[in-house]
């Protein structure tokens, strides 16, 4: 009863416009929609779904920790707690004071919480020096615009996933996830540059989403390079991923330019061995890896 009261009061307080929390406050939020511009600092615990409503912007200050409790209301073994942004988000940490999105569980593990989801946003969203751990997907961006840089994605099921989006992902470290980067729909414009993507099971997974059924991709999938010029994956270190550095998903029939990346070796044959594309499945497109970077990209990863 006490907990419920605290949750209620916290939720009500939180709906006040322009409320900034003191560092000492630990706020617990259950299912709630933020309709006004809001500032988070200190420690925030999410115990359900928090929605940043359309028209509102959530600003998260450097050094803030956002913790997500494990709740599984639909019994799919994936934590349901989530931060869903329809409005806008500015989460700009610093190298010294990053913003942390993580599990609230005492023994955390991947899939403890769902994701930070930016969905049909009308804002230019910014995330920098953020750390995402123990999520299903640390970050998902769909039908939205976001710039993500100097962020850490570690020990999630997926580091990040995005579909139809205007995305710039650069200078991030994406490591120890099952899938580092999952790009569904294969629509852009998307730039993935100067990232360090290592020690995931699969580094980068490019797949037209077979689940999307309302025109979520080009009908017919004729192999026409319709997305040419919209996807730039270059100047990254994509190496030492356990299964594949790069994998094309089923029905990904388009040839993709992925030159100027460092794959952990400068030998084309060895690089090809870390890539799942047409060489392993004739139905898939080719990963065009030339020109190869001949050495590790020195400024890849968090600055």
């Amino acid at each position: 009863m006490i907990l419920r009261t605290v949750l209620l009061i916290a939720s009500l307080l939180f709906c006040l416009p322009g409320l900034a929390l003191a560092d000492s406050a630990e706020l617990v939020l259950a299912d709630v929609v933020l309709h006004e511009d809001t500032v988070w600092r200190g420690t925030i615990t999410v115990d359900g779904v928090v929605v940043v409503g359309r028209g509102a912007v959530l600003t998260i200050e450097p050094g803030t920790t956002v913790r997500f409790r494990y709740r599984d209301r639909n019994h799919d073994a994936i934590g349901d707690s989530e931060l869903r942004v329809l409005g806008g988000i500015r989460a700009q940490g610093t190298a010294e004071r990053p913003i942390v999105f993580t599990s609230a569980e005492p023994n955390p593990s991947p899939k403890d919480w769902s994701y930070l989801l930016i969905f049909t946003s009308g804002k230019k969203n910014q995330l920098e020096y953020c750390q995402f751990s123990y999520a299903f997907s640390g970050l998902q961006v769909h039908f939205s615009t976001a710039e993500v840089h100097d962020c850490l994605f570690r020990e999630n099921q997926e580091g990040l996933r995005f579909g139809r989006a205007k995305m710039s992902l650069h200078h991030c470290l994406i490591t120890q996830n099952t899938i580092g980067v999952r790009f569904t729909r294969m629509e852009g414009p998307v730039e993935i540059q100067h990232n360090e993507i290592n020690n995931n099971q699969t580094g980068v997974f490019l797949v037209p989403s077979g689940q999307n059924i309302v025109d979520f991709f080009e009908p017919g999938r004729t192999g026409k390079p319709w997305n040419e010029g919209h996807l730039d994956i270059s100047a990254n270190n994509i190496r030492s991923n356990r299964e594949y550095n790069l994998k094309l998903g089923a029905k990904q029939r388009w040839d993709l330019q992925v030159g100027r990346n460092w794959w952990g070796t400068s030998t084309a044959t060895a690089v090809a061995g870390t890539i799942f594309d047409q060489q392993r499945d004739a139905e898939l497109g080719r990963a065009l890896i030339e020109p190869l970077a001949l050495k590790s990209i020195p400024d890849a990863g968090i600055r």
Partner: protein
Amino acid sequence: MKAFLHQSFCFLVGLMFVTTAGAATIEGIVLTDSGPAEGAKVVAYRTFADLTAKANAVVSVEGGKPGQYRIDLDPGKYYLTASSQRQGQSFFAYHGLNPITIADAYQWIPFFVLPETKLNCEVGYQGIGGRVLYKETPLRHGSVTAYRLDDEPFRGMGVLTNSLPAEGTFWFDLTPGRYVVIARQRQEPDAIGPLKKGDLFCYTPTNPIEVNPAHACQVDLRCYPRDDLDHFLSQDVLDPRGKRLAARKDSSLEKASIQETGRGGAIDGPIAIIAGRVINLDGQPMPGLVVSAYPADALPLFQMYVLRFKADSIAKTDDKGFYRLEMRPGSYYLVAREKVGDAPNEGEHYGLYEGSANHSLSVQGGETKTGVQIVVESIMP
């Protein structure tokens, strides 16, 4: 002799009863793009299942002129098809307004028959693909929808809806089962509701198409324009309408109105109503947006994939941004946007209901919830 006269009188009285209180006479003409389809037959079925099985059919007789037919039907709803043969080529039409309500009054129902298409299924990616053709040219715009059989009468977004690319091609990933595939092209791209004159309706007589595991099916859908004979006929063909054009148009189906919602058909029991307004971030009303209600009862959480479901109810906002949805009692996710049947696009005004964290709203039978506001904004700046 007296007994004979009595029996004859009773027969005539009985016939009169049947004629005045029972069957309605339907007449019309069946046309190919080169003119009347001589020897054409129109067949009426009570259900789509009967149409598929070609069971319990009522078949027309020839009318007074080439291509014309006549059929007597008891009042009710019917799936009407037409077919003909010419020089070894089979032609077929499935009426775009099926099932058509036949009242106890005369109706003139024309059909535009098209060359039959073939279905080719072979081992491959599981699903259905093909082309949509009008006058043998790929349809550049429009939408194509796959329906499950329980989506009868096959209106709204079905289980899958795609926009057509310039090549007029489509592809659906589908689980094994039987599907009806229909394409439409509206002259007003954002229109909803029944097709209007000149809108294209595209069908294949191979419907329903059975998808088997690990099999890909290819089929062409051919189109005809609703109530637009001028557009349908080839340029060098004489117009068969003659002097009776006005009378025929008056009794055609141009003014028929069938609510085109995702659920199709009537709602059993007391309906529920959700009404409100769609506004932008400045509080200004947003006219001409589509508000869709997606069923939420089985889902404790909002997830993006729910928006791939078939909407249970669809309405358009009026000049002042107001909308009104009629639906079965239940819980619904509400979405307002500019388009139907496509993923959200850059610059599109889009919004979810934000009265709850999972964007859903519950409504009871007989209940009207008003003042349900949805805020939209242009996305992906």
